[in-house]
């Protein structure tokens, strides 16, 4: 059994000559909950669509469940083992909840009636109600039901909680966390909501301008990265930016703020040699990691 569920290497895609993805490399291990973060237009949806075969890549390699996805047949085989929840959560407007389930069920040999019943009851979805009459929250729940009852090994979701109220968001996150814990389902979802990513994800992948800028286990990233605040008597020296391990440098007046990773102690020693008045080392939050990388300072 392959331990990497999603593997992409050298993935590139342009629209009308404008690059949307540039040499993207991505690995999502089996059983993980991976948050896929990025600003609007960073390439998150494009990546998901490439993985699902909705778009054609310009170059690069995609492997899902350890198998190369290089033809329609291989894409169909992969899609049989995964569930997808699109950002707008729209299903067929000419079907009811029951008809949507009845339509989807036969495509997936591993469909689990017990889960179907469980989530129908849990979400209290009205079986006879037409899809257009469902609220966005209910449509999200129906999409989750369709994705989860098929016994998918991998759930790919594009902004699964967008448009949901806080209570509903919390419920959805809880269900996803339970699913990963109980069935070992791999969950890969894009989001703008850093707090929810921090809440349930064990891995994050931050994408900016079509390239992965941070990828790793969330706890490792948090322990690996540090914020170092240095206050100087005058303008902070330029050499700070060149110190080994410094990812980003922000200057405001006499204060320099470094986002650094690796051997932070060695870095602090080197920084002290530049004569700061005070030095403070702080842990970083996901928000800081995200903002420092996507703002490109």
């Amino acid at each position: 059994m392959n331990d990497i569920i999603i593997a992409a290497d050298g993935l590139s895609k342009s629209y009308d000559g404008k690059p949307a993805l540039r040499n993207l490399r991505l690995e999502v291990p089996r059983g993980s909950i991976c948050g896929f973060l990025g600003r609007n237009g960073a390439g998150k949806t494009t990546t998901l669509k490439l993985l699902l075969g909705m778009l054609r890549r310009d170059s690069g390699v995609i492997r899902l469940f350890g198998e190369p996805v290089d033809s329609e047949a291989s894409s169909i085989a992969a899609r049989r083992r995964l569930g997808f929840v699109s950002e707008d959560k729209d299903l067929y407007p000419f079907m009811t909840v029951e008809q949507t389930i009845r339509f989807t069920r036969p495509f997936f040999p591993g469909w689990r009636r017990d889960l179907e019943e469980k989530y129908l009851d849990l979400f209290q979805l009205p079986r006879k109600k037409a899809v257009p009459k469902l609220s966005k929250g209910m449509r999200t729940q129906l999409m989750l039901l369709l994705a989860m009852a098929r016994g998918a090994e991998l759930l790919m979701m594009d902004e699964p909680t967008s448009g949901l109220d806080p209570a509903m968001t919390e419920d959805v996150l809880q269900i996803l966390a339970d699913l990963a814990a109980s069935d070992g389902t791999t969950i890969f979802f894009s989001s703008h909501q850093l707090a929810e990513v921090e809440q349930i994800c064990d891995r994050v992948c931050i994408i900016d301008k079509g390239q992965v800028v941070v990828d790793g286990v969330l706890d490792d990233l948090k322990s690996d990265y540090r914020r170092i605040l240095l206050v100087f008597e005058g303008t902070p020296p330029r050499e700070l930016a060149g110190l080994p391990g410094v990812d980003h440098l922000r200057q405001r007046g006499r204060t320099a703020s470094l986002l650094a990773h690796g051997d932070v102690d060695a870095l602090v020693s080197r920084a002290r040699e530049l004569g700061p008045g005070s030095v403070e080392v702080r842990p970083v939050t996901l928000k800081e990691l995200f903002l420092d990388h996507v703002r490109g300072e």
Partner: protein
Amino acid sequence: MLWYKAWLETRWRFVFMLGSILLLWLAPQFLPFFGFRLPPGVPASRAWLGLHLGSILLYIVVANFLAGSGVNSQTTYAATSGFHGSMLFTLSLPVSRRRLLLVRAGLGAFLTGVLVAVMAGYTLFQRPGGASAFDALEYIARAIACTMAVYALSVLLACVLDEMWQFYAATFCWIAFYLLQSRFAVLAWLSPLRGMSLISYPVTALMPWAPVVASLALAGVFLCTSALVLQRKQY
């Protein structure tokens, strides 16, 4: 289960078109109640010809109305967010685009065929002098064959256009073709539109083989092109 989706997508359209056809047929029966009568001297055959030629328009409307690609969902004549969202859901299912097209286009063609058969049959039934059962069947088959060219063009357009524009574009194409066929004899000879109307069996008592063959060939070309377009299209 793709047929199930296709049926749910098209069933109200089918019922709507069937209802519209019945209404159009029934309306003339009530005209005398409101004082409308054929002017004196107009033969019944002339009135029948009007019915026959008028039903050709309905063939085209039916074909355009029931055509779909299987990827773009069709519900209302407006491109809504639901239109695009359900498209992504369809494409995430483990099924080939060719199969999506085949099932949707197949069911649409079947329903179009049923409606055309009903209309063609009624037209023959109303014809002064009647027609033999064999001739009627043969004419119905040919009317369906000619309509398939119209239908297949609409399927092709459904692969690339939102639903509203698909309908308009298909209508525009056939209006343009109608104008061109009056200028070019070859087009007129092969025209599916003329195959259904002026050179059709009820008018000429001859079976229009050239339009039938041309229509089926055109339908084949349009459907193959649709499959290629859908295969290459990015969503």
